[in-house]
């Protein structure tokens, strides 16, 4: 197995996640795209862990997973709050920081 194949896969996932963050209007979908990005990173970490023969990558990946979980929890909490106040979670409508 090439090292690059995993890395390329991670890169593709990363870019798709980036596209999703940019293009999506729904806040929840944006969060999902962020999950894609995080998973791409995780894949990178594990691939390098195998290449280098050290378990550091695993450890780091575990931490990333934990943090991602926490981040999703908080993020969705915020989305709920916004929804309660604005009745919408379309990001286009949340432009008070305009100007």
């Amino acid at each position, binding site marked *: 197995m*090439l*090292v*690059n*194949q*995993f890395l*390329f*896969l991670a*890169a593709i996932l*990363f*870019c*798709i*996640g*980036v596209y*999703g*963050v*940019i*293009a*999506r*209007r*729904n806040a*929840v*979908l944006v*969060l*999902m*795209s962020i*999950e*894609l990005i995080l*998973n791409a990173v*995780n*894949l990178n970490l*594990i691939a390098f*862990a*195998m*290449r280098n*023969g050290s*378990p*550091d990558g*695993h*450890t780091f990946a*575990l*931490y990333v*997973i*934990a943090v991602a*979980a*926490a*981040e*999703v*929890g*908080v993020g*969705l*909490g*915020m989305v*709920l*709050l916004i*929804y*309660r106040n604005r009745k919408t*979670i*379309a*990001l*286009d409508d949340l432009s008070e920081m305009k100007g």
Partner: protein
Amino acid sequence: MVAQNIGFALIALVMIVGALRVVTTSNVVHAALWLVVVLSGAAAQYVLLAAEFVAITQVLVYVGAVMVLFLFGTMLTRSRIGRETDLNNPRWKWGIPVALLLFAAMAIALVSAFGDEKMPEDAAPVPVQVVSDQIFGPYLLPFWALSFVLLAAVIGAIVLARKD
């Protein structure tokens, strides 16, 4: 070797298709389900990469908890279940060149850095014990920090989502 490559290729294809569907579908629930596909594929890749504990953790946490969260969030924000239009913001076309540019950059870097480098042949699966030794050994501090982060996240989520 060949079996691993074939397995990798199949799983990679599924993952990419799934990721694309996540960012292009016009149904929020479908996007969530496609994300499940991607996450599961990632777990399979971890197995290929001899990271069994991480794969299991991925399934447990991501697929099991995070996706449920997403679905709850979708339901609670009354995103219409079923087909709906207009999930892309007006400037969605800008994302394509950005993503492509990014990919180009990364591709160039990867090709020039690693080229045709192969993974080590004799990679043994990393036992859980080794991972736990790492966590509670050199990386103990980040572990504790992480616990605080999780605590904060829990409290934060509860505070945010409270109905006052």
